[in-house]
């Protein structure tokens, strides 16, 4: 607004709260009343300028349409949810963009849920494929039981060909490798926690990826926390639900969430705080659960869940502990995942890396990596996903670094895929600085 117009007066949430009567729009979103949120939209389009998909895909109408505008259409007459909602990657950037507190991602999640429920053919290839991708957790145990076979089969070109032709899973990507020993197997083998401490207790939500694919991240968390004297609990758990939200599989997500809330609430009852090493998992427990579900204790779990690194920064003097540690000449290109950004955690890793002698970390900027969980795995989304990632790849290549660093498992796949860099998790660097080669130590202790 460059001329004498005034910016739209705001609509302060809360001010009119007494007066509205709830209208139900998305039927399966039982307790949801999104009206005050939708009414807050004053069409400034800030959300649209933050949407990485709209930036590369002319055909995507953007978050403002997906959220408040579609909501209004729905209210007026018998509109179906627009199928473009399936193009949204659930990066949730629009959420933190909106200056007016419109709950965009909550609207997208519910709209996607309704779309899949009402408008998607349950026998269609797309539905089946999405369900498989979203429920990766269900397949993973099988693959993990025969990791070498699984890795071999997944790597076969014929498997990829079937993936692409039959299921619509892109053949451009390499399936993530399954670890030969899952984190939970290691944990049991190790005899669980090495430290008991009723006053300092955390319950670790490791999620699927750290369990099946990158147990080294989970082990790093355990060792770093034990270094600070914490008792680590590893409660039973299901998938966080993130891939299910993103695919509109709200019923699947609800089942997983119910287990998680129950188990984590019990741990909280035992005096633990919940920590997660994956930024999408913590986002899901903290924000999406309370937005979408109302199990008993949902709020309690959300309020007591932390990003694992953030927790140490607040409860311990992590930075002081890192001053004086050193690692031999490591330089990283750091990408802050969208779901870290949304939680205000995007600056944290750089701050900590700066404290370690010999470590340099360069932030590669605020672009989205583009993979967004299952999104970049879909054959029809692959190109969009890579276009979004282009800026990050370029910045990584330009950074003075040999390795990549991030906290999100799928971002790390994309970083590796686009640049060929090996990617590390912040917790692994902290482990190296604070604990050293713990694997060797544990092996020795185990032997002795």
């Amino acid at each position, binding site marked *: 607004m460059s001329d004498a117009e005034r910016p739209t007066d705001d609509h302060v949430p809360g001010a009119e709260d007494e007066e509205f009567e709830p209208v139900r729009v998305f039927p399966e979103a039982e307790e949801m009343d999104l009206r005050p949120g939708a009414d807050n939209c004053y069409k400034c389009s*800030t959300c649209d300028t933050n949407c990485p998909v709209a930036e590369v895909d002319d055909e995507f109408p953007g978050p403002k349409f997906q959220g408040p505008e579609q909501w209004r259409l729905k209210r007026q007459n018998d509109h179906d949810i627009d199928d473009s909602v399936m193009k949204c990657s659930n990066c949730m950037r629009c959420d933190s963009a909106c200056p007016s507190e419109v709950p965009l991602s909550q609207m997208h999640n519910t709209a996607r849920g309704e779309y899949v429920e009402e408008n998607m053919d349950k026998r269609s290839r797309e539905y089946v494929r999405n369900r498989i991708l979203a429920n990766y957790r269900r397949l993973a145990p099988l693959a993990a039981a025969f990791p070498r076979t699984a890795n071999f089969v997944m790597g076969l070109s014929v498997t990829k060909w079937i993936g692409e032709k039959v299921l619509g899973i892109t053949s451009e990507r390499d399936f993530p490798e399954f670890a030969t020993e899952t984190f939970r197997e290691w944990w049991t083998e190790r005899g669980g926690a090495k430290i008991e401490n009723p006053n300092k207790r955390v319950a670790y939500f490791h999620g699927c990826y750290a369990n099946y694919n990158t147990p080294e991240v989970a082990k790093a968390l355990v060792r770093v926390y034990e270094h600070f004297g914490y008792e680590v609990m590893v409660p039973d758990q299901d998938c966080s639900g993130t891939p299910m939200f993103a695919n509109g599989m709200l019923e699947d997500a609800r089942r997983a969430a119910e287990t998680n809330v129950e188990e984590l609430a019990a741990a909280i009852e035992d005096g633990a705080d919940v920590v997660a090493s994956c930024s999408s998992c913590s986002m899901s427990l903290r924000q999406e659960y309370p937005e979408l579900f109302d199990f008993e204790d949902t709020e309690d779990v959300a309020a007591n869940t932390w990003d694992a690194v953030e927790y140490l920064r607040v409860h311990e003097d992590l930075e002081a502990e890192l001053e004086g540690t050193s690692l031999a000449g490591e330089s990283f290109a750091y990408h802050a995942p969208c779901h870290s950004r949304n*939680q*205000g955690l*995007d*600056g944290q890793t750089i701050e900590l890396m700066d404290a370690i002698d010999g470590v340099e970390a360069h932030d590669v900027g605020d672009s989205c990596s583009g993979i967004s969980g299952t999104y970049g795995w879909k054959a029809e989304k692959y190109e969009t996903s890579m276009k979004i990632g282009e800026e990050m790849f370029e910045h990584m290549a330009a950074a003075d670094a040999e390795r990549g660093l991030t906290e999100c498992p799928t971002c790390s796949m994309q970083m590796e895929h686009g640049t060929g860099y090996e990617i590390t998790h912040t917790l692994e660097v902290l482990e190296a600085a604070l604990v050293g080669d713990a694997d060797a130590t544990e092996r020795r202790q185990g032997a002795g």
Partner: protein
Amino acid sequence: MAIEDDVLVIGGGLAGATAALAAADAGRDVRVRLVTYKQSTLRHASGLIDVLGYAPASDGKAEGPLVDPFDALADLPEGHPYERVGSEAVREALAFFDDIAGDAYAGDHTDRNALVPTHRGTVKPTARYPVSTAEGLASDDRDALLVGFETLPDFEAPLAAAHLEAAGAPFSARGVTIPFPGIVRDDAKVTRYAHLLDRDETVTTGAGETGAREALATTVRQHLEGEPRVGFPAVLGDERAAEVRTALADALGADVFEVPMGPPSLPGIRLEDLLYGALEDAGVRVTSGVPVVDYEMADAAGAGSAGAGTAADGGGVGDRIDRVVVDRNGTEIPHRADQYVLATGGLVGKGVRSERERVFEPIFDCHVPHAEDRYDWFVDDVFGEQPYARFGLAPDRELRPLDARDEPEFANLRAAGAVLGGYDFAAEKSGGGVSLATGYVAGRRAAEEVDE
């Protein structure tokens, strides 16, 4: 434990970013953090930095456009943010901005306002403008071709050109509307246009497949009648805007400029990127996406006490904020600093809120002067001076917000930008300048007090 810093700036708009940069610049060892919630109004703003385009006049109407904003600063009413900080500080703040912006901005060669054509074909007096608009100034007497896009209705080039001529611009302007190669959707986002040009993506036109820049130049060339400069809506690239402009200028054999657009605005987004890049270079720690929701006061023993929300009554210079509470998706994270700067914006940025019965500042509940009766908050004449436009905190000359008895609310809290009252940025065209000047002074003073 809390996250510890020396200066904590709350709010990451133009005012907050400037405050954080000024604080980092002032003290060698001052550790500065900026905590900001949603995106600031920078993304809506034109990217122009207005100091004062129109002066508030005694009859309630605005006076202007002003040729030299500095001439008018001395006559501003008491309580106006410029009156609070003084005109020397306004100059220093602009110089500080010029340093940060480097060659991305122009206008620093003179005190006088530049006249920038806007997307409606009006002419706006401004103090600093992005270089992308430099070739378009209305004081320049070269003829201009304005180019609009069919899919971007916010800029009607023929209409804007007619308005410019009617306003007496010293050149002739002509407007054409063309399709933008590679865009089909009629509500494609401005970032989509910018991305196409930034990446020079391959597009298909009647003439076959070419890069987007070349395709655009080819389409425009057919309409060029020897004009030495061509104006486009401000969508010419984001990260590589300069490169895009040069490529188009070379291909057209004419100078190329951007016409600032309504929100959302790429020049505003580029300014935001520039400021956040500067924050990173200055070592300011930035925490974004999370709001400050509460605070705790220091008691006599120096420890924190839960005094939230109760400070409004007992205010006085002695009261200090010990820590503020940041809400991270439901988890409350304490942040402690020695000095605080509040730059949370106005009614739009949500730094000041209104309910039926009252207008208030939501974090510290600082006093917001306003009439008891809500019917006195606005006047019926929509073009008249609106009291609500001036709502905001009333600070002392140190920019510490004052309570109802004119005492500072807290010893270690300063405020800057749109959260301040006493001015109407939309009517005066002073938004950017006030944010810069008050941000600069608040940040600098905060850092100096840490040093003491």
